[in-house]
């Protein structure tokens, strides 16, 4: 592949934001804004039970109705956005730091350290992420923090692989050889010459993994392993309402649609980020 992009394809890649991406960004911004403003806009305490108003359909007093314990669905949805966002994004952040950090440390120490570290990472990858997260939560106990750590450990290998692949791709290039010939040490070359090239790949990976982290968080809390029961999360709301699906579908539809809106917009933004930061690959796809 030639290094220079054909001008018309380059133009197509840099055409700016597609309407889809803009809508996705607006949806995400709205969810984040609701989560930030949660205590100000919730009409009820999300834990308050109104036992005289169980399974109420949406109406003037309860905008999205009430659930099987008489709790206001809208208030729970808005407060739940906080937990879902914090744990999902936090998990991705832990994965980023852990994966990129361990990968780079191993790479900077040379062949033996690299082989050992990646053998360990391969071992972690041999288990599917949900199963590993589940096992870690059993070991660490339920709660927001353990779930974040579990997500971080389960998704960290992806970042380590990206770091290694980019490292080896760059390490054979002429500018690295030149830097070494000028007497640059291993660490110096890594920090000054290779690290800047790692950033794009790692951010792309983060953008791709973010929706998966959020999905896994919602799966875990749906299975009852997320944060503690007094913290509403969307996954837990779905699980709670699933027993009353026939009588009060609104209580389950609200969190389901919220999860879908969040993960869909995240994956569209991830796609846009990938196209922007990985123009060669995107041009490849556009040409085919």
């Amino acid at each position, binding site marked *: 592949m030639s290094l220079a992009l054909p001008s018309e394809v380059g133009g197509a890649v840099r055409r700016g934001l597609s309407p889809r991406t803009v809508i996705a960004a607006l949806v995400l911004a709205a969810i984040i804004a609701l989560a930030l403003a949660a205590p100000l806009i919730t009409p009820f305490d999300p834990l308050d039970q109104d036992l005289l108003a169980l399974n109420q359909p949406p109406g003037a007093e309860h905008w999205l109705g009430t659930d099987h314990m008489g709790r206001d669905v809208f208030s729970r949805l808005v407060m739940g956005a906080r937990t879902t966002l914090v744990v999902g994004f936090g998990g991705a952040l832990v994965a980023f730091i852990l994966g990129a950090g361990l990968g780079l440390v191993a790479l900077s120490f040379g062949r033996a350290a690299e082989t050992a570290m990646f053998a360990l990472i*391969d*071992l972690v990858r*041999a*288990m*599917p*992420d*949900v*199963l590993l997260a*589940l*096992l*870690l939560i*059993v*070991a*660490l106990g339920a709660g927001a923090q353990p779930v974040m750590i579990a997500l971080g450990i389960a998704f960290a290998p992806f970042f380590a692989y990206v770091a290694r692949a980019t490292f080896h791709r760059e390490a054979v290039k002429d500018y690295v050889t030149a830097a070494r010939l000028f007497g640059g040490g291993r660490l110096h070359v890594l920090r000054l010459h290779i690290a800047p090239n790692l950033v794009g790949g790692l951010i792309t990976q983060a953008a791709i993994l973010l*929706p*998966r982290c959020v*999905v*896994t968080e*919602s*799966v875990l809390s*749906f*299975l*009852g*392993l997320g944060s503690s029961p007094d913290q509403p999360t969307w*996954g837990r709301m*779905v699980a709670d309402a*699933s027993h009353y*699906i*026939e009588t009060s*579908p609104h209580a*389950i*539809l609200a969190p*389901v649609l919220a*999860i*879908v809106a969040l*993960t*869909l917009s*995240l*994956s569209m933004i991830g796609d846009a980020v990938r196209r922007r930061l990985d123009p060669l690959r995107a041009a490849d*796809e556009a040409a*085919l």
Partner: protein
Amino acid sequence: MKTVLHRLSPFAIALARMLVQATGIVVVVFLLARLVPGDAVDVKGLEGDLTAAQQVALRHELGLDRSVPEQLVAWSWRALKGDFGDSIRFGRPVSGMLGTALPTTLLFAALSFALGLGLALALAVGAVTTGNRVLRELVNLFSVWSIALPTFCVGVIGILVFSVWLGWLPVLGSMNLPVIIIGIDSAGVIVKPLHEELREAATSAHVRTARAKGLAPWRIALRHLLPTAVPVMLALSGLVLTSLVAGTLTMEVLFGLPGVGSLLLNAIHGRDYPVIQAAILVIAVALVVINAATDLLHRLIDPRMTS
């Protein structure tokens, strides 16, 4: 002799890798379960009133007073023979509980896996041979579906539409809907890379020649594209298995299927550690074995892998 060895060595490597991975999983599962504060005797002690002397005796009987490596070896040796101990909550052998739950999960997973691979293959080959816009959009749609839609959300909407509003299916216990949901989800995991790979294969000389000879599109698809598609699909099937685990867990819980997933979650909520350990171990090791098997199959049918 040398050629036989040459052909066999990748198998030996695949087998060795499988054994190492399986051993690693056994160690990880055992050690993580040991991180849990309190042991089986503490759990029992909380329920009944065991005296301190009884607790010590029970710990000795269960081997909990020995060193961790010793316990690991003893536990793995018994697990290898299919003895996972007794459930703390039900007092029954864990192996028996797994035995009753496994057929449901295996049937469910096999059906979803087959549906997923079949769908992905049909869609990718169809899109490449016909160049149909609708099929190409379907490839993208399936791929976005599997990335962005958690299967349990799709399951909830499916129950609402097909069971509650249309009344076509029972809410609980039916396997039709979950198999379709997980099948589409699995197809979405691999359909895009498969499609990309096939598009590249479709530009190769032998397909161009077939087209120039005037062969019918379905014949090109079956005789000239499918042979390249199957090995690629086998290489990608590991990804499907990973997503299948999450899907099976949530679908079993949501649709009330009495499989290993339901068993595992009930055990987690009841802190039934022997059952948790055994269920996770069985799922993880089964995955390693299936992955090794598809890897071997891939090497067998694709001569490029051994040369």
